[in-house]
């Protein structure tokens, strides 16, 4: 059973660009995250908490990556007052919270986008139901067909919700009747529960949607 059931999940938004000398800032060094096309400078403590929000690979199968999990892990890494930093990052749009339930997942999916950061390595004869993601011959992770499909196609769509709808439409057109694959709401629910697989392995990053489906 997962710990943290019923609490919102936390997701990092943006692409990790690493630590460099800040332009025009003397000899200071900063971490940079690219979010929605902008390079956002964050402090080292903020960066640690943001990185923690990607998830910890080995811990994901036993706990959901909630605020409690992020705060606890950041504290374990030596970050003081991580809860306040989570709030700062949420205000800056670098972390987003997704409450349980379809409505929150839908709003999250309308406003965000998924971008792959690795190559697809296909499936194998022995385990054709799993698809590899990584580089070279050795996959970094292997995922279900629906996750692979969305990982592959999402960045050509306006937002994650549209990606789930397209996936479900293709499935219906191919004659599928399994609602986990043909109902975009179910596709999305399964995706939200698995997104930390991508972020914790740096197999993809989340960003603000190119065209948000939320009316302004």
């Amino acid at each position, binding site marked *: 059973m997962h710990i943290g059931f019923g609490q919102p999940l936390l997701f990092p938004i943006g*692409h990790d660009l*690493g630590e460099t000398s800040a332009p025009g800032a003397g000899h200071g060094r900063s971490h940079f995250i690219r979010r929605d096309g902008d390079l956002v400078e964050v402090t080292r403590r903020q960066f640690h908490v943001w990185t923690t929000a990607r998830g910890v690979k080995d811990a994901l199968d036993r706990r959901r990556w909630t605020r409690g999990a992020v705060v606890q892990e950041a504290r374990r890494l030596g970050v003081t007052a991580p809860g306040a930093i989570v709030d700062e990052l949420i205000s800056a749009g670098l972390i987003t919270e997704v409450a349980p339930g379809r409505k929150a997942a839908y709003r999250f999916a309308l406003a965000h986008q998924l971008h792959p950061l*690795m*190559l697809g390595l296909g*499936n194998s004869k022995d385990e054709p139901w799993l698809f590899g993601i990584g580089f070279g011959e050795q996959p*970094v992770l292997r995922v279900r067909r629906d996750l692979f499909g969305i990982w592959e196609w999402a960045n050509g769509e306006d937002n994650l919700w549209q990606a789930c709808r397209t996936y479900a439409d293709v*499935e219906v057109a191919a004659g599928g009747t399994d609602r986990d694959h043909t109902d975009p709401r179910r596709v999305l629910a399964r995706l939200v529960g698995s997104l930390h697989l991508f972020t914790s392995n740096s197999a993809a990053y989340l960003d603000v949607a190119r065209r948000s489906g939320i009316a302004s």
Partner: protein
Amino acid sequence: MSEPGRDDVKLIFPVGHDMGAVYRVRPSPHAYLEREYEPAVPRSVDPMGAPRPRPLRVEVELDDHRVRVARRSVRLSGEEVAIWRLAHGPASGAENRLWTRTVLDEQARAVGHRRPGRLIDGLLERGVLAEASPARADAVAFARRHRLCPLMVGFGDTAERPSSFGLGYSDEPVVELSGDLYRLWQLSPRSDLWAACELLAGTAATAAPAERESSHSTKTERVLTRVLGALHFLLSHHVVYLDEAVGDR
């Protein structure tokens, strides 16, 4: 970034995101594949604690290799994907050779392809290979038709090596880039390669006062020439892939 030596040289590039080889299951619809493999014995009953897939009731055979280009999936044969991968450039990075169609043809023959020209024609026609002359007008058309998509995450530079920027995955850098190439990688998710070069040209203008006098477009073209000269290094190390620009990004 290195500058391609001759004006009339035409470089050849792979377009698309590698998705790997696909094993297709027949006759069962792929949609139910994972259901077919659900453990026949529940975990709690299995003394080894591992799921035991049911014996295959279906035939699994190698279909094709897939490359995603914009919103289409391009299927390549084993021979075609070998040529497409060679088009990424020299994997060692040591070879400082301009990667043209002639070089690609030679390399393909060297690894046993008897008539690579026919395959290269087919791949160009299907849009998974594209050619561009770095210093000519067709480079601008190429840059407007394509975009760079970054792969991996950044590890930045270090105090010991301030001009060398690491990119990688799984918590460690695997490639080091110069500052110019790192900036290109940072700026690459733009609408198209031309837009990324415009941004780079804007950055370059503050550092190179002599260039400020030339027109914006000329500056961008110069940057593009250098970018195209460096592109095979980025492609062969898989820190970017080229995709078709679809507009409105």
